[in-house]
């Protein structure tokens, strides 16, 4: 209820005036506001001011309106040959889709120099642009059944990749979508997928996490015990190579993600609560881990399990399985003020471009600290290190972990060569 007022603008009424002008108030509230205006001279002045602003805003925007021919051309870039099955079905290959979209655009500025620059940057790294040798990580010795599934996955990966690559090389615009993930050689994070997750997820979306018990975690093959042994061990040189499992069928993906889930949820893995947004990269599926109770490990771990579940569901929806990651093909290190080495091992072949221009990079996070107190929380860059997915965005040619502003270096990074490395902290 809006109180009567005669002499001055009521704050509540003032807030509602733009909505009165644009017609979005419900009928009853609009009537109350108008009734109030009849009695309030100051409010009428304010309404006149808002009307002037509304008129100016429309006039300003009208000068920039897009013409009908431009809209026709724009549509022409969307429709022909670009669409696969929407929603839960397989996507058209986004590289094909985008190629077709670009065919409808004649403006040479569409070559997008920013993207070209990072492609060039990445192509100059030591990261192999061909698929690396396939090898199973040490932890798969615990998982003979899974290993079999992974082997099948590898075979499928090779077959599908070979097929997918042959399809991408030509003009994809008129092709029927193949619905499969594939990797473009020499352009590791090319538009191998183009996925946008339109609906933010919250913990409320996943009530099942409350049902997970500590016993369930204890039953997992990789328990905290493994980490207890590994925690204070010098990780040694980073020479392991796990390689990509890549495209597989759903069963393989589910098996792989089950391992991932157990891995992420059932080890402490040095995850300090305050690090949560970093390791879950904050932007991943827009799941805000802070929604969970930050003071309890269990909620945090459950939330990470949910991320694994969402990850699996997402991959299944898209028909892509960038699941069992990688790593070992390249190592980058930074130095933090606490003399801890941050290491990210990644293989850009496991990256995907998101439709909003960000990049999702799947990798293995590793943290090693000389400070014993930090070691206690740190986890060694061993095969059991937590698998991570980063959402990266590009700022001035550099890719940063979204919302954290932690740089990821793909090429020649100043902190690899500078006498005084740039220090990047999480705060």
């Amino acid at each position, binding site marked *: 209820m809006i109180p009567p007022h005669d002499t001055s603008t009521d704050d509540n009424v*003032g*807030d509602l005036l*733009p*909505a009165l*002008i*644009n*017609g*979005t108030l419900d009928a009853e509230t609009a009537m109350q506001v108008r009734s109030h205006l009849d009695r309030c001279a*100051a409010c009428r*002045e*304010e309404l*006149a*001011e*808002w009307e*002037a*602003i509304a*008129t*100016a*805003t*429309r*006039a*300003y*925007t009208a000068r*920039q*309106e*897009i013409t009908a021919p*431009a*809209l026709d051309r*724009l*549509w022409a*870039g*969307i*429709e022909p040959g*670009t*669409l696969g099955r*929407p*929603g*839960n*079905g397989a996507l058209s290959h986004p590289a094909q*889709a985008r190629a077709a*979209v670009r065919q409808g*655009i004649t*403006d040479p*500025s*569409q070559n997008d120099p*920013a993207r070209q620059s990072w492609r060039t940057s990445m192509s100059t790294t030591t990261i192999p642009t061909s698929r690396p040798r396939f090898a199973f990580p040490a932890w798969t010795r615990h998982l003979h059944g899974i290993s079999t599934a992974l082997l099948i996955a590898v075979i499928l990966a090779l077959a599908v990749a070979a097929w997918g690559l042959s399809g991408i090389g030509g003009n994809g615009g008129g092709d029927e979508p193949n619905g499969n993930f594939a990797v473009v050689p020499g352009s590791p994070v090319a538009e191998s997928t*183009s*996925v946008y*997750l*339109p*609906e933010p997820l919250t913990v409320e979306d996943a009530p099942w996490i409350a049902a997970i018990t500590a016993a369930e975690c204890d039953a997992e093959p990789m328990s905290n015990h493994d980490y207890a042994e590994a925690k204070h061990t010098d990780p040694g040189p980073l020479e392991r190579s796990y390689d990509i499992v890549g495209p597989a069928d759903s069963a393989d993906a589910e098996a792989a993600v089950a391992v991932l889930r157990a891995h992420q949820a059932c080890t402490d893995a040095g995850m300090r609560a305050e690090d949560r947004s970093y390791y879950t990269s904050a932007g991943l599926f827009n799941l805000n881990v802070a929604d969970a109770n930050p003071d309890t490990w269990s909620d945090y771990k459950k939330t990470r399990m949910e991320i694994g579940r969402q990850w699996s569901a997402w991959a299944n*929806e898209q028909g892509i399985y960038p699941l069992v990651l990688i790593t070992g093909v390249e190592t980058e290190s930074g130095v933090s003020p606490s003399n801890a080495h941050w290491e990210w091992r990644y293989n850009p072949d496991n990256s995907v471009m998101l*439709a*909003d*221009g*960000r990049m999702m990079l799947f990798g293995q996070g590793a943290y090693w600290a000389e400070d014993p107190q930090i070691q206690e929380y740190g986890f060694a860059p061993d095969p059991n290190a937590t698998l991570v997915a980063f959402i990266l965005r*590009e*700022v*001035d*040619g550099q890719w940063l972990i979204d919302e954290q502003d932690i740089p990821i270096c793909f090429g020649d990074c100043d902190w690899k060569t500078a006498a005084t490395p740039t220090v990047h902290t999480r705060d």
Partner: protein
Amino acid sequence: MTDVDDAGGTRRVKVITDDSHALIARLAAGDRAALRELYDRHGAELATFVVRYTSDRGEIEEIVQDTMLAAWNGSGRFVGRSSVRSWLFGIARRRAADIHRRRRPELADAALDTLSDPAPGPEAWALAQAGEDELLTAMERLSPMHREVLELVFVHHFAYAEVAETLDIPLGTVKSRLNHARKALRAHVRSDAR
């Protein structure tokens, strides 16, 4: 949905049946005609909206096309918590913001929101009495963030809740941002008058 239009000084209010969610369901079922319909409904306003982020025609087209493709691809996951318009505008805005960020990072929205009122005081008359050219000049000088919220409200007729969804800000911030925009306009008009 209620839409308001000004025509020849007469306010015309038309009520549109909101079947947008059904349209998205058709999209999710693979109905290409539904995508065309979605485009016919929202393509122009999306393009108009995107113009405020970039003057590069190629980028505008890319953003709108990406938005439509994202709608097609994501339609199966659209659960209707937001309006279709704010969903589309949100996608377009994030895409545009990303392109924009590459070129010139701006002061974060949150920081802008906390800027003090540039011109406190009851000077509503200043805007109401200002000439069209004066107001347009003031609009030019307005920060992109403030123009954005004004355009969503007065050009695209978004309800506050839709603005909040599109910009991913709380409802209260929509109101405060509107007021900051108004005060900034006042300040610009007044400084021009000096």
